[in-house]
């Protein structure tokens, strides 16, 4: 039976309404899409790093999560999940539990690329049977749009502001997906919200039902931080993919597979122009910024194509 969004959204929601995420927040969309990929009969324990998602979805005494859920801190979601999974293995071995549980972590880019990076690397290396999902919105949004190592070059963030002596963030975005691939784990994928969500659904399903550690990097735009109207979410995601700023691919047992190749790769400025955080790049005299941004995307895209062929 092929993928049908209609059928998928008819499944019982595992992340329910009433949470306090902003309208148009990418994190909530990522969570719903990933949780839909669980087979309805399977249980899950969700581990959440501190961040927008955590403070908006589990405010005592309310929770938006239908599955068991644990938050312990910002930088340790992977290790916490590893502990849950370890307990599951031994309790199952001892016959104390008989359900099938899946273990899913959600962390933002701050909790994943930066402060939670060591914990993530350790958990992946140890081989826990878990899926780490990064909802990547390219800055510390919970604290108010501070730059992270995932923030792209030139982005105007509150700790990399533009000014007379600053062009925004000075460094390129860290390529975390490649670093996860280098861990030699069975499954790594990049996805975002495209069309009928088939790409994200299938990757989430594969990640969840692959034995061993899996890493799913989901570009999850933040209308407030990126400064675009919330209703443009789908267009922003489409442009990220069509410009190859955020290529869709998966790496299965070390083998790269391109999920989508744009027929006509669009210039990066069509993606950048939609967002207030890149506004200064379009000022007269700043054409060099656009050129550098284009060169970087082209270089990374070429590298990816080489890996996929």
């Amino acid at each position, binding site marked *: 039976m092929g993928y049908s969004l209609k059928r998928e959204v008819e499944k019982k929601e595992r992340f329910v309404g009433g949470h306090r995420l902003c309208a148009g927040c990418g994190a909530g969309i990522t969570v719903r899409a990933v949780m839909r990929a669980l087979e309805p009969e399977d*249980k899950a*324990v969700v*581990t959440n790093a501190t961040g927008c998602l*955590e*403070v908006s979805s*589990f*405010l*005592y*005494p309310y*929770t938006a*999560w*239908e*599955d*068991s*859920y*644990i*938050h*312990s*801190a910002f*930088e*340790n979601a992977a*290790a*916490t*999940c*590893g*502990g*849950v*999974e*370890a*307990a*599951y*293995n*031994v*309790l199952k*071995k*001892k016959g*104390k*539990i*008989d*359900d099938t*549980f899946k273990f899913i972590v959600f962390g933002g880019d701050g909790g994943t690329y930066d402060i939670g990076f*060591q*914990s993530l*690397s*350790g*958990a992946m*290396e*140890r081989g826990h049977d878990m899926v780490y999902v990064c909802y990547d919105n390219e800055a510390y949004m919970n604290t108010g749009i501070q730059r992270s190592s995932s923030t792209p070059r030139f982005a105007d963030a509150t700790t990399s502001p533009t000014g007379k002596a600053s062009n925004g963030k000075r460094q390129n975005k860290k390529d975390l997906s490649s670093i996860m691939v280098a861990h030699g784990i069975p499954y790594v994928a990049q996805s975002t919200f495209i069309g009928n969500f088939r790409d994200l659904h299938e990757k989430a399903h594969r990640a969840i039902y692959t034995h061993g550690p899996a890493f799913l990097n989901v570009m999850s735009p933040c209308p407030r931080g990126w400064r675009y109207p919330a209703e443009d979410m789908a267009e922003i995601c489409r442009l990220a993919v069509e410009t190859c700023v955020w290529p869709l691919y998966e790496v299965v047992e070390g083998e790269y597979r391109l999920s989508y190749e744009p027929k006509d790769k669009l210039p990066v400025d069509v993606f950048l122009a939609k967002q207030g955080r890149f506004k200064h790049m379009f000022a007269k005299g700043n054409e060099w910024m656009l050129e550098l941004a284009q060169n970087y995307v082209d270089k990374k895209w070429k590298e990816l194509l080489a890996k996929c062929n």
Partner: protein
Amino acid sequence: MSIRERLSGNEAVAYAMRQINPDVMGAFPITPSTEIPQYFAQYVADGLVDTEYVTVESEHSSMSTCIGAQAAGGRAVTATSSCGLALMFELLYVASSCRLPITLACVNRALSGPININNDHSDSMGARDAGWIQIYAETNQEAYDNFLQAMPIGENPAVRLPVMICQDGFITSHGVENIELLEDDKAKAFVGEYNPEHFLLKHENPLAVGPYDVTHYYMEHKIQQAEAMKAAKPVILQVAAEFEKLTGRKYGFFEAYRMEDAETALVLIGSSAGTARATVDKLRAEGKKVGMVKLRVFRPFPMEELAAALQHCKAVAVLDKAESFSAAGGPLFAETRSALYDLDSRPKAINYVYGLGGRDFTVDVAEYIFGQLDEIVTTGNTGEVYRHIGQREV
């Protein structure tokens, strides 16, 4: 019949862990606690335990692993020292506030900096407000016995708090002593099964752990933790009484040694008690009315009991194996002196910070301190309250 052995403190704790057969261990090396996960790794390798042995990449992750495992419904243990405990700091609070009765073997070592691998209590004293029960050992035997008592205390439904079982780095962790061990079946039966009421992997009912706790609720939750710590006091005594029935070895909040008619006394924690006891015996033989209180349980702090034990003294010296840089004395002193405040007639109290970074504590030093107490009794003048001893110029 119990088993007579010769073990280091580290091996004794690892041995207790094997007998308990915990569900998950977070394992990371740091001197001087390294041997605990190392001995345990061999138990795992030899198939003697069912434990998931999680070789994490830091102490931060070992405590995080324990939090996840205990919340999931398992029994989680770990061991650490010094900087390792400091790296766990944030998670210590998370563990206690989530009411997860994790057991941590703390092999006390000085905190950096400067880096130093030897014993003092700066690591666990630094964590004294983290909401963990803290029990200290003088000997290898006590480290073993305390470890077996940790889970029955922490897991008690009235308590549900994590427990730190402390012993002195190298002095007991690496020193080999005669020890009496319980048979495996007796140890297991004493510790019992862990059957939490709520846990993440529960079939009937999912659980959410670690909420964002807004102003309306946070304070109530903190008070619940404070109440749990109070509730731990009778439980600690009850578990000790059961342990005594099983082994004949008696434990309480502290040991009061020759305190019945003591006029001066030392209050201290850990392995230094051996030296203090020898000094008390020596001075008693000379006809001096001296005694010692060796504190076993620092959290919860046995305030009234300690005051009662010291009330008839004329002067006491509280010995802190940790600096707190308060410019007014160490942590044990601050709390002991506070305990004395409620007495109608109080002994005079002074503080000695001693033994930092492994500096030796000798009978000569203890005798000198008793001499200082005598002087206070004679002159009625306390003099400088906050003192250091054992440093080169003294």
